[in-house]
């Protein structure tokens, strides 16, 4: 099997979840709850500031409620989703989310030059399985590129981060 075909296979595996899954129900519930919170928050507003958000929010709550019921009914009809594809995708999500949260966390802690550079080295070494030399070179290039483009060319002041000043 060629690499391209293998890749297509992986793409096929990534086909997105349909309605009725636990995730779909939870997501719709979150949207519903969020809209209810916004709608409740309009109670403290002046009437002229609240009128349009209420006019949009009320039908939106009804619409989201309708979808929530539909998702629950769809789950009852269809049963649980195929376990293998679901588990593979969910494990991918469990990798993606912490890695992506690590980037702004490092930037906030170590600054917008050092933080991203360290993240790039870590990503390429651990996830990308690149050699240490390649990962370090990429990290150094990232730091230089950020400094040259954002600080040098555009004169932007990049935050040093909470611990950046100590480095």
């Amino acid at each position, binding site marked *: 099997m060629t690499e391209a075909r*293998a890749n297509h296979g992986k793409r096929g595996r*990534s086909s997105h979840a349909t309605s009725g899954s636990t995730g779909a129900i939870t997501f719709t519930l979150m949207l519903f709850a969020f809209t209810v919170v916004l709608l409740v928050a309009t109670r403290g*507003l002046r009437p002229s500031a609240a009128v349009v*958000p209420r006019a949009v929010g009320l039908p*939106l709550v009804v619409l*989201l409620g309708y979808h929530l019921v539909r998702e629950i009914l769809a789950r009852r009809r269809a049963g649980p989703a195929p376990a293998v594809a679901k588990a593979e995708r969910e494990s991918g999500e469990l990798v993606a989310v912490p890695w992506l949260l690590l980037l702004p966390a490092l930037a*906030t802690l170590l600054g917008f030059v050092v933080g*991203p550079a360290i993240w790039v080295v870590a990503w390429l070494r651990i996830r990308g399985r690149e050699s240490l030399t390649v990962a370090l070179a990429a990290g150094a290039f990232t730091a230089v590129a950020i400094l040259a483009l954002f600080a040098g060319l555009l004169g932007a002041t990049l935050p040093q981060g909470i611990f950046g000043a100590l480095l």
Partner: protein
Amino acid sequence: MPPVLAAAWEGLTLVFTWPNILYPIAGTLAAMVVALLPGLSGAALMALAIPVTFGWDPLHVLLLYGALVGGATFMGSVTAILLNIPGSAPNAATLIDGYPMAQKGMARTALAASATASALGSTFGVVVLIAVLPLIARIIPRIGPAEYLLLAIWGLLAIGTLIRGSVSKGLAAAGLGLMLSFIGFDMRAADVRFTFGTLYLQDGLSIVPVFLGLFAISETIDLIASGRVTVSGRTHVEELGGSTREGILAVFRHWGLFLKSSVIGTVVGMIPGLGGTVAAFVAYGEAARTDRAGTMGTGDIRGVIAPESANDAKDGGSLLPTLALGIPASTGTAVLLGVMAIHGIRPGQELLSEGLPLAFVLIWALFLSNWMTSVVGLAIVRPLSRLTIVRTRRLIPPIAVLALLGAFAYRGRVADVWVAMLFGALGYLMKKYDWSRVAFVMALVLGPLFELNLQLTLDLQRLGRIDFWSRPSVLVLLALIAMTTVPTWVRRRVS
């Protein structure tokens, strides 16, 4: 020779005189580099260049700034098409179809179509600018809240035609976008809404971090979670389809759509406060409305041509109120007006009579920079398209770092980075569970315009300051809305 044409010729001669030509070239190159960096707009570069120009001749200032206005527009679509990262907010409309084209291995075609639509769209805008410039001083003051309201309604109604799959789900996504657009300080009621006590939310949600999150970060999550090897699913350049020629020809094949989008871009550009994002999304909505095959949003070339031609045509349109009335039509033209004031160039009647050649210097510099970016873009389509066969494990670091820096650089706030992350998660979940992100962002963009002008129109009508139904421009817009929207809804209902 009529005075306008004589001034146009004089302006053109001034642009191509040595060493004057160096200024628009330098401006274009700087704008191209900045446009590739997400979150940084041409307006930011224009503001940064102000101190450099203090001692300059006004002619050279206009040559540089004309190029800065026009140079950034096309390049923002490059990252949108290749990496799902909008270079600037208006390019978010391009990625809806541009990125799926790159995923199908058709990045070359998409980039070439984008470059061609940009160059021709800007030409259209400049031609209209030259034709309408003498008349514009009488037209612009007639556009008021009622007309703004109808334009916003037109855009919001277009959402209905963009929705694929469940219509009620699409409408709910649009409703959520509208609700989030209400966050922040309501100037009319002098009240803050949905800020939950935070200072950060008082200015409302910033569009750039939201767009970067919804599209770039969500795509990064998807790339990691799906285990895809490359963006296009191909690993060798020979496996890539499409061609530069195909992309160029596509614009001519869809010439009706190109013209319609350019008209939308020019008209929206003329109207102060609307800008390229509204132009691009309204043009995209109009293209989707006429899509009978139902392929828009899945990698249709028309979804690239429409927003790109509108976005570039808008540049010419936005110079009309700026030069004729001194009213900025966008952030970029607001900075331009400031620079003109610093150098003693006063827009209005004086500039359009004795200073007309100087006004044309600005127009030609804009025109030249738009073409230069497109020509350079066409020349590098092939190497750029190779990005779609780069392994995702190597592509993810630049995407993630650019998205992070783009979210921060727009306003220099670290909190924007976390907002982008939050919207990244939201965008990923919306994509995963089939909630329309396009309907969501269109409503988010048009929400403030709709609400403010709805309330202003109602107030003005109540106070007897306007008669909504007797305004010719209102009737024209209502007819246009009815003509473009009703047949689509009827067709959808029948099918």
